[in-house]
């Protein structure tokens, strides 16, 4: 009577008959549709749907969406449901690193490919990497590291850093500090603010001002980013202490809520909607037509995740192991430029754009200052094995 989970899973994959090409690929879309990251989940889903429509117009994909509520236990229960009950071939999504940590062992143990469409935890493609987990978004260090060298090249040698006090914030700042000190820069001071509990950044801003730094480098996202940018501006600090940061600070998703306060802030990110390429123009037009707003980096992550899936399936690969292996070979030129998967870590390799937020004709827009070349992350203890049963 008892069915052993792992044994059952082993059997399921062992007996998996190569499916007919007409059988739809079953995709579990695991995103937060409620909770603090609902806006991100919605943007990724819109991008993902657009990607499937664009690259696989005759469908061939069946999407089952599940809400993680940004709660790791809920996400894990939903993941098990997708794997065991819905018998999906592949899972895409995952916004928060906490959720990624919770589902990591489940997908790794069950042998189900997971396309990470946001969560940037360095360890997921480092010490905790898995051949089953392919990241189409970014890693926290990757986005910030090149900015260290770039900032030093602009003649800035002393920087004060600020970020929320959680693993993601520490990794983002860690990546920047690594790049900046390697280039010869000096950190004047660092503060980590209580995550999602800080209403007033005033005390930290005064400390930054008193530190004798030439510039401030920060990571904030979502509503914290809006509060931070506005308060930074209201203290009039932009003139004497220019504000730099990780590009999530001035994401298109909420830069208009920041308004003129964001003008002049220079940040780095793997995507901005003003990248001047044919692929990006097509994507922006299609996304705007669909949602009425400009695509954010989250939208492009969803879009490229869908494209990676379509391209993996187009090689004729079917089933969990087949798709998992094919996903690792995917490379294409998309809205954010030439992207590929690093075989050593399964993390995406992509260019990083340094951009300044400027006042546009209708609302704030992004002026690209530099395109920093794509560099794979160091393996950080990742020992990648081939996808195996």
């Amino acid at each position, binding site marked *: 009577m008892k069915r052993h989970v792992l044994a059952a899973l082993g059997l399921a994959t062992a007996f998996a008959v190569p499916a007919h090409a007409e059988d739809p690929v079953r995709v579990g879309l695991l995103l937060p549709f*409620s909770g*603090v990251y*609902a*806006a991100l989940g*919605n943007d990724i889903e819109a991008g993902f749907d657009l990607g499937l429509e664009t690259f696989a117009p005759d469908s061939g994909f069946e999407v089952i969406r599940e809400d993680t509520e940004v709660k790791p236990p809920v996400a894990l229960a939903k993941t098990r449901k997708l794997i065991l009950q819905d018998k999906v071939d592949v899972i895409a999504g995952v916004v928060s690193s906490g959720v990624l940590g919770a589902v990591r062992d489940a997908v790794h143990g069950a042998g189900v490919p997971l396309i990470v469409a946001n969560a940037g935890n360095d360890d997921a493609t480092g010490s905790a990497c898995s051949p089953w987990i392919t990241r189409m978004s970014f890693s926290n260090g990757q986005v910030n590291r090149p900015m260290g060298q770039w900032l030093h090249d602009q003649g800035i040698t002393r920087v004060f850093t600020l970020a929320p*006090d959680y693993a993601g914030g520490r990794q983002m700042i860690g990546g920047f500090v690594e790049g900046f000190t390697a280039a010869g820069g000096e950190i004047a001071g660092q*503060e*980590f*603010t*209580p995550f*999602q*509990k800080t*209403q*007033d950044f*005033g*005390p*930290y801003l*005064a*400390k930054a001002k*008193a530190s004798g730094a030439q510039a401030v480098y920060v990571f904030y996202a*979502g*509503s*914290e*980013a*809006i*509060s931070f940018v*506005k*308060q930074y501006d*209201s*203290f*009039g600090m932009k003139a004497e202490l220019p504000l730099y940061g990780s590009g999530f600070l001035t994401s298109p*998703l*909420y830069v208009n*809520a*920041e*308004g003129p306060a964001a003008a002049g802030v220079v940040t780095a990110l793997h995507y901005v909607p003003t990248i001047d390429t044919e692929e990006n123009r097509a994507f922006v037009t299609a996304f705007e037509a669909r949602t009425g707003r400009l695509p954010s980096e989250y939208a492009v992550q969803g879009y490229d995740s869908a494209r990676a899936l379509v391209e993996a399936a187009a090689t004729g690969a079917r089933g969990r192991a087949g798709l998992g292996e094919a996903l690792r070979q995917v490379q294409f030129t998309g809205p954010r430029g030439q992207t590929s998967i690093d075989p050593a870590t399964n993390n995406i390799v992509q260019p990083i754009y340094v951009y300044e937020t400027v006042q546009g004709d209708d609302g704030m827009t992004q002026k690209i200052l530099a395109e920093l070349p794509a560099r794979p992350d160091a393996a950080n203890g990742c020992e990648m094995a081939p996808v195996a049963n």
Partner: protein
Amino acid sequence: MTTDPGFWLLQTLNALQLSMLLFLLSIGLTVIFGLMHFVNLAHGALYAAGAYVAASVSAVAGFWAGLVLAPLAVAVIGVLLYGGLIRRMRRSGPMAQVLVTFGLIFVALDLTRLIWGDIALASAMPPLLEGRLSVLGIDYPLYRLFVIGLGLVVFAALAFVLGRTQIGAMIRAGVDNDAMAACLGINVERLFFIVFCLGCALAGLAGAVAAPLLSVSPDMGLQILIPTLIVIVIGGLGSLQGAIAGSLVYGFVQTFGAVLAPGLASVLIYGLLAAILVIRPTGLFPAKG
């Protein structure tokens, strides 16, 4: 740490600003408690509603229109809540009322998401208050000074109304002993209604004031709820002095905690709350002895 006096003055102003924002929020909650003996957990949701209304109105008609309309709109919500829920719950005990307002949090959260979406909004500062003012040798944002001033004005106005007017005396009588007040011919039911709506309007005002400082997001009400509760419990429930004292304690501990002991910043205030409750189980300035 720096010995520059300007730095410490700046931090003191920061602490005052946070205190006054919390004071605007907690005074409504604490007076409602003092009179009606229940904690309105949906107070944070009213604050969020005020911020959303202010953001929407100010996008069309400017900041000042938002600042006036937001408290009015939230007071109307208060009227509806009182008529629809609170009045019928008058006799069912504080626990039931707390739970109804807990349910309201869920409802309000999803309603704001349905109406305004998941993406955070913001409202612009009024041009009049955009710059900075030189105070004793340091530049301080004018808007923050405005928040401090508004908090002090509201405090003074409430102190006058509660201490010097007839309605204030009636409210104090109601807080002290509502049954006795009713015997003396005070229409306690109407008093409850007025105080409840006033408390809601103040929450709306706090939301409107916070909107240009912070971001306006669906979970802002939930985020501010715990600090507000801490303020009124430290201060002692039901009293004006308690609300101002609690706000100042919270504002200064948070600000100077962040400056002097950043590693402890988030644990410090909870430790202080626990300590105060152990030493004085009813807070610093309870309304009743």
